[in-house]
Structures are given as C-alpha cells and as structure tokens.
C-alpha cells in the first residue's frame, strides 16, 4: 500500500493461497496446496528458535509474514498460525523444549496441526466455569486421562494435537497449581470431534472436542498457574490483530481497484470526495494498527512481554477492520453483498476477529487493569432505585393527579 512495508521483500508471499481464497471460503476447507505452499514458504518455522526447528526470524520479518498471509487468506492464516505460532509457543514456553520436541517438530514442518482448546460451552472465556479435568489414569500408572468438552475452538475438528487448558485433580499433598496444559493426541478413540458452521473464516475448521477419559502421557501434563497463561495467550491476540489488518488491507485494496474502475452517474468513483474520504480514513486507520502491530511483534521477538500493548492492538485492529470492511461493502454496492465476492467474504471474516481469542470488551477490562485500575470488581446492579431514578416520574400535577384527583 505504501513504501513502509519494511522487511516485506524478504517475507514470504502467498499468491496461490490468495488465488484460492474464495474457494477456501466456499468449500469450508483449506486446500492441500495451501499447506504445501505454507510449508515451502518457511512460514511455519519463522517464529521459533533454531533449537526447536525454527528459523528464528527477526520481528520485522515475522510481522511482514503474518501480514502477508492474512492478506492472502484470513482462514488459512488462522489455521496455520493457531498451530505454528500460538500452540507451538504454548508448548515451548510452558513445556520442555527437549521433551516436547517430538510435538513441536511436526507442527513446524506442517505435518501436524494443533488446536488450543480453552473455551467450554458454559460461559466463553470464564475459566471459573470450565470443567475439563485431567486425573491419574489409575492408582499405579504414571499416565493420565482427560475428561470434558471444549467448544467453539479454532482448528479443533481438523487438528491432530490439542493444547488443552484443564483442571488438575490433585492428590492429597499436591500443592501445585490447580490448572494444567495437557498436550492431547486427538487421533485416539476416546476423543470425539464435531464441526460448527460459522459466519466467517470458513476455511478454518471450528468446533468442539469431547474427551471421554482420553489418554495423556504424564510428560504431556504441564501444571501451570492460570495467571501465567495470559502471557502465552497474548500470542493469540497478536496474530488475530494481524488477521484483522490483513483483512482490512485486502478490503481497502479491493476498494481502491473498484473506485478506479467504476463510473457512476458519469463520475468515476475515484473522483468523488465521499469515496476518497472512506479510502483515506481506512488507510490511516490500517496504518495506525500496522505500525503498532509491527512494534509489538518486534518487542515480543526480542523477548519482552508487551502484553498490554498487544491487548490494545487486538481491540483496535479487529474493530477497525470491521469498519473498513463495511466501507468496502458500501463502495462496492450490491456486488459487495454477493456471495463469492471478495468483499462479501472479508465482511464476514472481519467480525470473527472481534470475538475470537478474547472478545474486545473482555480485553478492554484487562487493558484497564494494566493501566493500574485494579481488577474488575463486581457489584450487583441495584443502585438506580435507591438513587431516586428507579421510578417513572409523576406528571406535571404531581401525586394529586396520579391519584386521579385532577388539580
């Protein structure tokens, strides 16, 4: 879009994946060629150090690669990045890079796909309601079993491996964390999956996993204090922000193309101030998100947390992309709501990012806490009535009138 895509020249580009994006959306499956293109491009290895099979790309390169793939096909980007970035980071951060090399290697080579199973059916991202539990398989053995259901999870119908947030059934004397990450092989009989059709990002599979005393090796149960997980989950916020930015860039590029081609009422769209205003606002907003996204990617690549900044980015970028996609629909008119048109797909895709990971407003509360406002405090909403605003007012003639005794 402009000359500021630093590092983009050395980043992979994904022409085939982009060309198949409409088909990927329509069929609801990521074509095999996409996976080959991803593997060949080196994308899956960019985010990790060489000791676990990565190529240790620098921040600008990681950022440019995510941006490019998200622009090519947001559904493919989600599927690949949940696995190769988010899940691999969770395993390498909270697990043991030596022990779990056997899990990481196939994720980075593209042979296997991972899913991060957090949310359950009851209440979205509120871990207090989660019931999935890991417990020892038997009195003697060292292995574990996992039981519970995770739902509305990216990649879960298609994945080979799940990184599962679960409760630990603790034996007396165990004063470790109440929670663990369990790395669960999904290709086993006691695991059932189901797919859930979804509005956007349709290439990516989405759905639920039911664990019915499924087997987990002892080495693959990693106790983690739940507070510490936020650090790893911020990788998720980061890539979702890039998904939004890529969608917005594609929507703007389509709008610019359309504005240059289309003539309406004798006026080329490109020459109309109202269209120019929409393009300019979209451009400035995308750039604001991009610059922050590149900045925090560099922070994180350098080993710093930048968690609050990533939270701010995720909120802004995802809501911005919805606005940019809506403007693109408006510029395209009826074509923009026709199934199969790029802009129609982008409009559906954009909203998914606002909800995915942590929804914007949930994240705003976390950012506020990071600003020093303290944790969210709940008090029942019961203050309107005592404050004198809980009743409809009497009329102009007051109680007299209300009592039917006209003044």
């Amino acid at each position, binding site marked *: 879009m402009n000359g500021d895509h630093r590092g983009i020249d050395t980043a992979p580009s994904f022409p085939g994946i982009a060309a198949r994006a409409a088909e990927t959306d329509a069929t609801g499956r990521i074509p095999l060629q996409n996976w080959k293109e991803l593997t060949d491009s080196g994308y899956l290895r960019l985010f990790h150090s060489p000791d676990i099979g990565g190529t240790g790309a620098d921040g600008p390169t990681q950022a440019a690669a995510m941006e490019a793939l998200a622009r090519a096909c947001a559904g493919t980007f989600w599927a690949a990045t949940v696995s190769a970035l988010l899940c691999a980071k969770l395993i390498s951060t909270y697990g043991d890079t030596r022990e779990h090399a056997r899990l990481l290697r196939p994720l980075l080579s593209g042979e296997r796909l991972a899913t991060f199973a957090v949310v359950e059916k009851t209440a979205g991202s509120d871990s207090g309601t989660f019931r999935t539990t890991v417990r020892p398989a038997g009195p003697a053995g060292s292995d574990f079993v996992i039981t519970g259901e995770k739902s509305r999870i990216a990649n879960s119908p298609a994945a080979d491996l799940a990184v599962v947030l679960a409760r630990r059934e603790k034996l007396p004397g165990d004063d470790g964390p109440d929670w663990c990450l369990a790395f669960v092989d999904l290709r086993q009989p006691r695991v059932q999956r189901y797919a859930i059709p979804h509005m956007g990002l349709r290439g990516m599979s989405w759905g639920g996993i039911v664990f019915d005393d499924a087997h987990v090796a002892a080495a693959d149960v990693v106790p983690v204090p739940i507070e510490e997980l936020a650090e790893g989950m911020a990788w998720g916020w980061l890539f979702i922000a890039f998904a939004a930015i890529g969608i917005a860039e594609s929507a703007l590029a389509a709008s610019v193309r359309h504005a240059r081609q289309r003539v309406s009422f004798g006026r080329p769209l490109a020459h*109309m*101030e*109202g*269209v*120019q*205003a929409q393009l300019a606002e979209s451009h400035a907003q995308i750039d604001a998100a991009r610059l922050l996204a590149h900045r925090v990617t560099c922070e994180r690549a350098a080993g710093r947390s930048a968690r609050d900044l990533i939270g701010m980015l995720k909120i802004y970028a995802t809501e911005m992309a919805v606005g940019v996609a809506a403007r693109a629909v408006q510029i395209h008119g009826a074509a923009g709501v026709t199934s199969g048109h790029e802009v129609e797909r982008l409009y559906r895709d954009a909203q998914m990012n606002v909800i995915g990971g942590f929804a914007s407003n949930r994240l705003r509360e976390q950012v506020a806490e990071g600003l020093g406002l303290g944790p969210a405090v709940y008090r029942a*909403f*019961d*203050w*309107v*009535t*005592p*404050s*004198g*605003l*809980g*009743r*409809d*007012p*009497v*009329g*102009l*003639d*007051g*109680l007299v*009138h*209300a009592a039917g005794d*006209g*003044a």
Partner: protein
Amino acid sequence: MLSHTLANGAADADGGGLSLVEWARELAGRVVRPTAAERDRDRRWDQGIFAELSGARSGPGLAGPLVPRALGGGGLSATRTCALLEGLGDGGRDPGLALAVGVHAVLATVLLRAFGNPRQQRRYLPRMASGEWVGAVSLRQTQGAAHASTVTARPAAAGLGGWVLSGELDLVAGAPVAHHFLVIAAHDDGSRTAFVVDRTTPGLLINDVGPVAMRTCPWGQVMLDGCVVPEDAVLSTVGGAADEVEPLLAALDWVFLSAPWLGVMRALTRDAIADAREHHLFGRPVVHAQSARFTLADQAAQCELASGLLYRAAGQFDGGGRPSREDAAAARLFVAAAARAVTEGAARLPGALGTTGDHLIERAHRDALFFAETGGGTEVLRPVIAASLLGIG
C-alpha cells in the same frame, strides 16, 4: 422542503406548537441573539432580557409556561413548552441563557406545581410566572443521588419545628439572581427531602463560581451554614424525595433542558448550509464536494431524529399521562450525542472556524460538552435505560 423540515419538524400533538416554535424563534432572535456573543465573552446575565422574555406581549411569557393560568402562568401543555424552548434555542443562539430560562421555567416551577401545597403554590408560582422571582436549582441535584448528597437536613432544636440545612451546592443555575432555591438534603438515615429555601434565609451564602461552559447562565455556588427553615419549606413529604421529587426532576432535566439544543442544532444546520454555498476549497464551492453534502445531509437527519424522541418524551407529560423515565432518558442520551455530532459536522466544513461572526459553532461546541455531562451524562442515562430494558437496577 428544507426550511419547512428544519423549522417545523417539531410536530405538535396539540396542534399549536408549530407556530409556537416560530414565534419563540422570532422573539429570541430579536431579544437574545444580538447580544449573545458579547454576553458570552463577558460572562454576563442580562436581567432585562429575562424580563422581556417573561413579559412578551404577543404570546406566552417564557418564565411560566407550565404554571396554570389561574396562578398567572401560560397554562401551556408540555409539548408547547418544549416548542417554546426549541424556538428559544434556535432564535437566541445562546445555550447558556436558554439553560437558565429552562431551569427556572420548567424545573423550578413544575416542582412547585406538582409537589407544592396550595400555600406554597400561591406564594411562589404567580411571581415566578411573571419573572419577578427567579427559582434556582443545582444541576448536581437533578440526577437523584447518583452523586453523593452534599447537603444534610437535621431537625431544628426541639420544640421549634423546622429543619437545619447544612452543606454546599455547586452548579446552581440562576443562583446570583434567584429568589429561592430547590435544595434536596439527606437525613441521617439516608433518606432525602426536598426543600424550597428562600435566598434571605440566614446562613445562606452565594459564591460566584461557575463552570467553563454556558457562560451566559448566571451560575453560583450556594453555601448553607446551618440554615434554619420552617416545616413549610418542605416540598412534598419528608424523606420522600427518592420516590417523588427526584424522578420528576430528573425527567424534566432530561427532556426540557434538551429542547433548546434541538433549536441550536437547527440553527447550526441552517448556518452550515449557507456557509457551504459561500466558501470555496480547491477552487470549487464547498457545496459541490460530496463529503460536505454527506455531512449536511446527516446533520439534517440528526435534527429530525432528535426531534422525534424529544417530543415523544415531552408529550408524555400531557393529557394526564404518566411520563416514562426510559423515554426521557433516551431523549437526552440521543439529543446530547446529536448536538455533539451536529456541532462537529458544522465545524468540519471548510471556513467554519473563522475570526468573525457570532461564533455559534465554538460556543455550541463548548456548551454541548457540558450539556452532555449534565443530567448525569452517559454514565447515568445508560444504566437508567438499561434498568428498564432488563427489569433490574
């Protein structure tokens, strides 16, 4: 089509508001507008203007439209009063003065009409309706106890009867020129009572302190240093403010103090249309630019949308109907946002912010921010509306 739409969108249920908007606009254009910018600069209240508005010959006085005719008032409906205030805002181009008029003519008089006993009504309402006595209210006290009470009421010394009021109130609209004040005070048990407190009450002191905005409204801070008031200063029942006075006071603020802003929005929109025809950018008339046309179309729409909510809420006070706090709050929430949107849209047009003219855009921009915070602002209005929707709160 346009001028009709912009001027008369305020359809009046009882059929007379139409001309009333125009009448008040003409009056205010003659009496208020010429000095609005100058009084704003000097932070000045002009009692002569208030007298002229109160004693208008050709139509209802603006000091007591809702006071019954038998008590010397205009005996207008709430809808027609809303139209009067819309016209005042439109013609006068002075949100501060319109606020002062609205606080006196609606908030202060209606509370006495609705809750005053016959003695109180006879004492206060005729002189308020004529504009001789100004009634003042603190804008901190029009949202119930959303903010903690700053005035306490304790029984006067045994046997004397009456109450002792102590505390302070700021943002009192009308204070420097008021004859009496509406004061809501908290008892030790947390319940609250409304009082009418005369200015001459010993211990009552007025400081000359006001907000940055609405500079043409006479502002003051009222200090109550152990003011002893008689039993007859109580409005309605002791301890009953939360069920009686407060809900009405809030709704009156939400609806009637919004009405002048509908007028201001219409004035800004008309100005913007005229300006866009005059100014040029990049060598062409602003009015040819698509983005300017969009802005003007949206401004006109905001006026009509706001008008609908406002007159619905006002109309609910008429015909013995019981007003809805939800609809009153929705009207305020929308009008406050619309006033901001219209001001900003007008300011965005090239050439809008110059060094000449009466600077209505700049004054309205400043005052609209303040307006949006009074009546509780979004943080009070939204929970009130949500409480109705959700059936909780």
